[in-house]
């Protein structure tokens, strides 16, 4: 706990995160779509509007618009890259794994196989104030899927 690393930011802003924050994979409002969620992190003002389209039981397309810190934007980008093609159940499993990773405070070994590039966010776990940023898009997708389940 008191072993402060020499560069406390090492591990937070992985090159992959910065790169995704610039790339903004999946940015844009897809048409048509099955569900849309607008989420806002009132603490810091990060916002996302996320749309998802299903093809049977699988995610067909995912698009988002939003603004916020590089963590929140990169995590939306990574999600948009990964989600298409996953079954709804697989998507939920991945969201859960992401949540576990982020909440671990560094204690959980990242499930690289399951999370792919998203393991780059492992470093966020040591910065509790940023966990909500990294989860924002993922929670938006989770809520959208729940809404679709309820239909």
């Amino acid at each position, binding site marked *: 706990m008191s072993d402060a690393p020499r560069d406390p930011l090492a591990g937070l802003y992985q090159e992959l995160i910065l790169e995704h924050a610039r790339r903004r994979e999946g940015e844009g409002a897809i048409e048509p779509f099955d569900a849309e969620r607008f989420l806002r992190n009132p603490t810091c003002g990060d916002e996302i509007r996320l749309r998802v389209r299903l093809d049977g039981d699988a995610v067909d397309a995912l698009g988002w618009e939003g603004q916020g810190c*590089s963590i929140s934007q990169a995590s939306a980008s990574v999600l948009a890259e990964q989600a298409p093609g996953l079954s709804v159940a697989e998507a939920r499993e991945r969201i859960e794994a992401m949540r576990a990773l982020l909440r671990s405070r560094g204690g959980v070994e990242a499930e690289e196989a399951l999370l792919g590039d998203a393991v780059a966010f492992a470093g966020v776990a040591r910065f509790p104030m940023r966990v909500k940023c990294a989860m924002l898009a993922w929670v938006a997708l989770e809520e959208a899927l729940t809404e679709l389940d309820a239909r």
Partner: protein
Amino acid sequence: MTTTATTGLTEERVLQLRADFPILAEQPAGVPLVYLDSGATSQQPRQVLEAEWAFRTRRNAAVHRGAHTLAALATDDYEVARDRIARFVGARPTEISWAMNATDALNTVALSLAAANRAAVVDPRLRIREGDEILVTEAEHHANLLPWQRLADETGATLRWVEVDDDGVWTADAALAAITERTRVVAVAHVSNVTGLIAPVEQLVAAAHEAGALVVLDACQSVPHRPVDLHGLGVDAAAFSGHKMLGPGGIGVLYLAEALGAALPPARVGGSMITTVTMTEHEFLPAPQRFEAGTQPVSAIVGLAAAVDYLEGVGMSAIEAHEVALGERLALGTASIDGVRLVGPRPGEERAGLASVIVDGVHAHDVGQLLDAVGIAARVGHHCAQPLHRRLGVAATTRASTYLTTTEAEVDRFLDALSGVRAYFGAGR
């Protein structure tokens, strides 16, 4: 560049003062702390903690209406503290009452005005009707905006505001032009917590009083940092928070000029503020007790009086000069960094000891994170001023705010770190 040594505080003096603040020796992020967030909440010197500790371990009791010695001692400390704090802002003790924070104090004024206007007989000085106007600025803190939005809603009055320019600055001329005979309340921050702009209070008061309007001053960022004489300014009400002026949290100060205090009904009702209560009726004590329902934060008030002693020991004019110099250093320094946009008055123009900036291509939260990594505690976000930020075209800015313990070296460390932000995040690539 202005040197702080002549009229402000020498570096030696600042280092001496810093020794009184235990937290400044902490290393929360694993590196020495550069605390540039006094605008949000200030740190407390030993003297404040010790005053509270002494009160709580030797004289703590419920004040007033106590026959026992402990209660008499506590009451003494309580009223001496009120006198002390009143004198600090040039007010009479009977014009000072307590709140949870400045937000609460500002709400009290607005809620009380709403209540006054629901009464069967409305005091003409407090009357607010449809067609009347309440005037604020576009740069207000939410604490000095939302209560007036609600009061306007409830009374049918129109909320008007003085607009800011691209830098977030409003002018005295625009404000004076906006005061008309329909204006009933002018509510404005003495010093903006985002831009550091200093309001032309005397001019506003003259125009407002001419129009028959009340002036409510959000003094959160002025009373802690510069000499403020409320009688001299002539405002009708003012609010500030103990936690921004070396004092403890949980204590806000409400100033109500004698005439307004005598006219306003209380927002909160309960014990210790009444004369006679029956099951169907109640009568209130005069100000300030009328505005002090229930047990007040006595220890925090005693702590705040100690904070005031500390501030006056250093000298408010010296503190002001010190911070103004640091504010100018911040303005000049930030304005000269590529891709960094300074908000508020331009370098060389009057500003308080703080500066907010926008870093092109990097979100303020990322800026704050990088600063934190090198030990700099600055604030990022909308600083409870969303309309201003919307006008500036951003969701968030990064603010460095100084106080009497801030050194030039700390400002320079901030400027240095800020210079590296865009490169770190690859902005502009």
